[in-house]
């Protein structure tokens, strides 16, 4: 058995107080001063430092925002002076796609590196838009296809990036000709360039270190080379440079040490790929396709002809199609491309990467089920640093997370923790599905349940036409 992929983690505590969903409001006035005050009974010992906080007026918010919302003190106070209130700071976190719940769970995963576990059944909506309109399947008893009796320590999350020949030809010396280069990484995730306005130059060295520590790759704009730090040289296997429109290539001393490169979908891409290959024949080259109105068609076109080895489909940061009125969602666009490539019989020859809107570990799994070989992730790594995605980021407002002041150890630790937690969650899902290799998860649409299909098969049959909501 090969070495097990394992990410070393250790807890990295947050720099700021937790921002809970609810806070306690204490009316104080009329307090009877009971000896056995309900505050002493708090299971979470929330009030222990209350007087200290009040005396120093420091972190006064902290005491309110640490509340877990069990209502015990509210319901027990002799005078009924305590009440819970929705925390407006919590409600302002993120936006309608990157919800406060997503931000909160990302923070806790970045702190602990653990799979979030909680009690009580799921309390969220029945289904929802985007990734919430599908469920993954699981392996029940009596399933002959289950991958044997091996435990989850045998589950592989490694993927190969590049073009794969459909068959090998042999001559008397062995395999005829040379095989195309492949990049393999231990989990189906690549760090993408952060979208504007969230791209912070100070984060480049941290992202680079996180990519190296987890054995994955980060995509960096070639124009940002100077931001990577002086020691970037030894990180080059974990960096994929992106060359935008008309940007000149980097020198061979750099490109020869990298494994993957990405170019924009502009100009004569065949020539640009050829130029890159000339510098380093072992380089795998991806083409970045913006998923606008023509995006899916373009991705299919690129994938079905020789040239591009990897097609990187990128939606906007919320996973939506770019520049159209009724945008499609990334998972549906990738599914469309995947199915088209399957129909042409070339799906296995090319690698599809998908990015935009990947906010949770479940999205990574679902995106792969919908046909991507691997995903590219951006904002979650920023959120790991306690960013709360202020809409006005960079516009002369003080950054509440002081992103530009973080030290590398904290930053790298938080990012690595998040990646490790995602990896564990992917294994959790694959274990439940009885799938032992993430390469087999790709496009396993038969092992997923889609809201529209189930509705039609169940309620459509019983109740007729679905209303347009």
């Amino acid at each position, binding site marked *: 058995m090969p070495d097990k992929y394992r990410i070393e983690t250790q807890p990295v505590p947050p720099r700021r107080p937790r921002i809970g969903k609810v806070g306690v409001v204490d009316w104080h006035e009329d307090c009877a001063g009971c000896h056995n005050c309900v505050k002493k009974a708090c299971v979470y010992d929330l009030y222990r430092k209350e007087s200290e906080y009040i005396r120093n007026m420091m972190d006064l918010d902290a005491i309110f925002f640490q509340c877990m919302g069990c209502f*015990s003190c509210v319901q027990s*106070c002799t005078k009924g002076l305590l009440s819970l209130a929705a925390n407006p700071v919590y409600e302002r976190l993120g936006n309608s796609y990157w919800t406060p719940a997503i931000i909160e769970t990302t923070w806790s995963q970045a702190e602990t590196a653990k799979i979030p576990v909680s009690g009580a059944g*799921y309390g*969220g909506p*029945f289904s929802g838009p985007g990734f919430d309109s599908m*469920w993954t399947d699981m392996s029940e008893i009596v399933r002959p296809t289950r991958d044997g009796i091996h435990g989850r320590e045998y589950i592989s999350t490694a993927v190969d990036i590049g073009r794969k020949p459909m068959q090998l030809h042999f001559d008397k010396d062995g395999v005829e000709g040379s095989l195309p280069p492949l990049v393999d990484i231990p989990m189906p995730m690549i760090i993408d360039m952060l979208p504007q306005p969230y791209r912070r130059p100070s984060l480049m060295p941290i992202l680079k270190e996180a990519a190296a520590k987890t054995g994955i790759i980060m995509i960096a704009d070639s124009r940002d080379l100077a931001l990577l730090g002086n020691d970037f040289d030894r990180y080059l296997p974990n960096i994929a440079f992106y060359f935008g429109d008309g940007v000149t290539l980097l020198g061979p001393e750099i490109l020869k040490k990298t494994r993957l490169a990405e170019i924009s979908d502009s100009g004569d891409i065949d020539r640009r790929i050829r130029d890159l290959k000339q510098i380093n024949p072992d380089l795998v080259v991806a083409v970045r396709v913006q998923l606008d109105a023509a995006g899916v068609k373009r991705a299919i076109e690129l994938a079905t002809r020789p040239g591009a080895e990897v097609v990187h489909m990128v939606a906007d940061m919320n996973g939506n199609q770019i520049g159209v009125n009724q945008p499609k969602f990334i998972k549906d666009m990738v599914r469309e491309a995947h199915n088209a490539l399957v129909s042409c019989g070339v799906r296995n020859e090319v690698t599809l990467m998908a990015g935009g809107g990947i906010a949770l570990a479940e999205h990574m799994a679902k995106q792969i089920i919908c046909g991507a070989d691997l995903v590219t992730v951006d904002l979650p790594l920023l959120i790991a640093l306690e960013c709360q995605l202020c809409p006005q980021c960079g516009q002369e407002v003080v950054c509440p997370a002081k992103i530009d002041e973080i030290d590398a150890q904290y930053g790298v630790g938080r990012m690595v923790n998040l990646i490790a937690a995602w990896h564990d969650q992917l294994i959790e899902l694959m274990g439940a599905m009885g799938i032992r290799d993430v390469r087999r998860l790709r496009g396993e649409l038969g092992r997923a349940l889609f809201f529209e299909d189930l509705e039609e098969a169940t*309620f459509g049959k019983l109740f007729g036409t679905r*209303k347009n909501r």
Partner: protein
Amino acid sequence: MVNSLVHERTDKENLPPNTVKTMVEQAKVERVIKPAPPRYRNEIAKYIIRRSDDCDLCGKCVEACPQGVHVLKPGYKKFAAPRNYLCIGPSCQKTDHYCVDLCPKKALRMVENPQVKLLGDYRWTGDMILATWKMAETGDLPSPEYGYEYECGNSGGGFDRLRFKFPVRPPVELSEAEIDTSLELNHRNDGRPQIRIDVPWYGGGMSFGSVSTVTQLSKARAATAFNTFTCTGEGGYPEYLRPYDDHTITQVATGLFGVREETIQRVRIVEFKYAQGAKPGLGGHLLADKVTPAVAQMRETVTGISLFSPFPFHSVYSIEDHQKHMDWIKHINRRALVSAKVSTPIDVDMVAVGSYSAGAHIVHMDGGYGGTGAAPDIAKKNIAMPIEYAIVKVHDFLTREGVRDKVTLIASGGIRNAYDIAKAIALGADGVVVGTAELVALGCVRCGRCESGRGCPRGIATTDEKLSKQINLEWGAQRVINLYAAWRKQLVDILMRLGLRSVRELRGRTDLLMHLDYENNAGQR
């Protein structure tokens, strides 16, 4: 049957007359409704009455309010805290005793309690929790005056979008006494005993370790009172449940904690837990802090070490293995019925028919949104299908295979009240299993912190000595009994309005349902 997936086992067992049964004297619990007032001083109220300093203690409000919201103790110079949870809110305005209008000093004001919005979630809305508390307190349905919207949650799909098409007048006039809510559990005609439960539901498995002793006993007592069942969960069979053996299902799950021949032999139903809806494809979780010395002893493990049960049963990789399991239990206990608890994968219909073929009397499907004491969030939200789909799929499939009437189909995973029970049955289940609702009756607020530290701050899902003392058994049992009584009343009411004599007549009657997101024009398409 040609092309059928069913393998019939028609052999009838001849049970020896001296079939083993429990040797312990069984407890009797009366099915009596008694008030079980809230255990917290300040019950969360939907409406709050605020009193300003203008009050001159005239006491008019005390006289006027039939609910007894205002409390002025003799000799006191101030009103005590109002019992807001008794207030019926704006619907009081139409009466002649609306305190806000009657107050000569205009010192009273009624506001909606903003905290209700913080209570619960999409599935268990604040209103539903408050209404369940009311039912657990009174044993009756909350008066419509309170304005609780508790029949449905706010999840936007499944049960929450299904409604009954009640006729203006029932097609048949029936009296309450004529309506039968009982359910037979053995349809195999295999010589094993018939078990009839008085209500079409039983209590879900909650193990010793995940919930407190009092919680387990409260459930057991209510089950006894209603001649139905509770379930031990996978954490072993504690001695204190012995007086309720006849109303206890013991679970055989992958962890096999505390499973012994004698625990199998003392019960009337044994349940195989293959999977759990909240974490399909994963084994049970009990995190380190909750593995107290007592729990560790019961489970024969080490104190303070997290317990993750394996998945799946490593002795079951085929339908034949499954049958071997069933036969093993059936042999050890010759009078027991066997239930297979499975989750809801895409081929749940195959699983159901396979379970039947292997000899299960009860196929229990736990939907993807089912309850849990601890499960990874990613599993709770994303794995396997919601129960609403699974019921229809399996009911139809078993019907097509011609075996629907030979097996009892039980659904769980998001059944919150009598309406959900009725809807699940109308979709095709015989009965349901409930869990979270019983805990809500005991005071759960769905804060979702059952898994960590000392466990539940409300003293329900915890084995912490101090925390679990918050609930006294007498009260806890009464709360669950009251809830069951209120549900039964509501179920009878639903059946009456539909003109159905028995809950069994409701099974599969999807024609009585409508879905708010559909044109309800099936058949016309």
